[in-house]
């Protein structure tokens, strides 16, 4: 691993983001829209629920929305960094340089982390200003939840990028679609027991399910579940290794089929 090459790649993506108004806007725009929609939906639900509405419904939904954005942005950080090079016809310049796969992936992780930090800071500030919701009320338990969503986002990002590498720009839509494939069963906005009984074991195989269940537990004042966190970390470790192997395999397939060169010049 060369820190110099990783730094160069991170610098390149940082330049890209700071030079492009649409890219900067994108970091703020969609999370802000999500926050406004979910915030007002929650206010409405509280109003029509009257006294029977649970007091912490606000925290559950807004907390879930902000947490979901961490996962989504982490995945996007990896996938969009790769796509940026494809769109700029710069992919060949990266892969004819002595860049190792691990360095490339690590750079996209770092870029993802930057994006998330900015987005979460903005969402947390606005949620507090608009709805008096303080995500930091989760205290130190926020960190392991954050870390798990980040890890899962990275794993999903690697899988998505691998698929784009294999099927080219036709598979671009996956960059935005893949996280939403798991959203309905990851118990993001509702508890696990709402899901049909046969779906629940599948949901428990997703690290995010344990994070969102754990988050609701903390918000209910029941403290951090060590079991949820352990399960999330263990599953993430498995998925990260599997995603890295899948990425490596697809990279080799792309080289064998000449797809890397094609993707870099089309």
């Amino acid at each position: 691993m060369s820190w110099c090459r990783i730094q160069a790649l991170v610098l390149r993506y940082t330049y890209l983001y700071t030079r492009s108004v649409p890219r900067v806007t994108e970091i703020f725009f969609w999370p802000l829209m999500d926050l406004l929609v979910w915030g007002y939906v929650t206010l409405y639900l509280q109003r029509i629920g009257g006294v029977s509405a649970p007091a912490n419904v606000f925290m559950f939904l807004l907390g879930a929305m902000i947490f979901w954005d961490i996962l989504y942005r982490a995945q996007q950080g990896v996938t969009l960094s790769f796509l940026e090079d494809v769109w700029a016809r710069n992919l060949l310049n990266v892969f004819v340089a002595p860049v190792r796969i691990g360095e490339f992936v690590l750079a996209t992780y770092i870029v993802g982390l930057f994006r998330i930090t900015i987005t979460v800071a903005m969402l947390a500030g606005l949620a507090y200003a608009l709805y008096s919701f303080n995500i930091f009320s989760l205290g130190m338990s926020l960190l392991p939840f954050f870390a798990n969503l980040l890890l899962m986002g990275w794993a999903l990002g690697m899988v998505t990028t691998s698929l784009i590498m294999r099927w080219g720009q036709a598979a671009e839509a996956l960059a935005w679609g893949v996280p939403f494939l798991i959203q309905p069963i990851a118990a993001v906005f509702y508890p696990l027991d709402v899901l049909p009984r046969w779906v629940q074991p599948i949901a428990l195989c997703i690290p995010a399910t344990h994070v969102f269940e754990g988050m609701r537990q903390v918000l209910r004042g029941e403290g951090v579940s060590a079991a949820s966190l352990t399960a999330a970390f263990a599953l993430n470790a498995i998925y990260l290794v599997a995603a890295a192997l899948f990425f490596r395999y697809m990279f080799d397939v792309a080289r064998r089929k000449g797809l890397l060169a094609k993707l870099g010049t089309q």
Partner: protein
Amino acid sequence: MNDAIVQVEHLRKEFSGTVAVADVSFNVRKGEIVGLLGANGAGKTTTIQILLGLTTPTSGSVRVFGKDLERHRCEILQRCNFCSAYTALPSNLKVRENLRVSGGLYGVPDLFRKMDALLSLFEIAHLKNKVTGQLSSGESTRVNLCKALLNDPELLMLDEPTASLDPNIADKVRKLLRKIQREQGITMIYTSHNMRDVEEVCDRVLFLHKGLIIAEGTPQEVITQFNHKTLEEVFITVARSGDLLEETT
């Protein structure tokens, strides 16, 4: 061959049953400029892609600097560079930013001095702070060439580097490449559809047709071999007749 920088033996590449490179063997000596010629589909781009480690061969071996390319890919790429008319540097970055990133990828020491020297050499120092996407195609090509020379490559692969240049700039670039090659002893592999480029720049050419090398030698030797007056005539004849080799040899 002791001074061979590139050694290619029985290279073959198939894509889903289609043969792109049938059986190609050649060596490139240190300091030589070798032109890969051929019509579209002859196999030259695939050969370059294999030499850059972007595509893996179906069979055969490629050794660069005496090392197996597949096993020492990153180590070899550190000593090479590439410039193509078909790739671009990110358009919304300034020229100096693009060069800074590229220099970082190769760990170039004293990068800013090197950048300035190359920009001056290609007469584009005034474009340093300009956004790459606002450059003319000729200026972009020269920035690409600066990028390709940043790491003082021992082996430089150039894929139609003058494709988008006007005759004046193309002539300057050819002369510069020759000068750089003479002064620094860089080995170059050069593809072009511009036969004038090839005659002027290349020490030796490899004529590819249907994935095979059908002629090899200095530009003049190849012209003589085919009883033509120019390399362009040879190119056209080869492109139009697959059986040319049998007619002429």
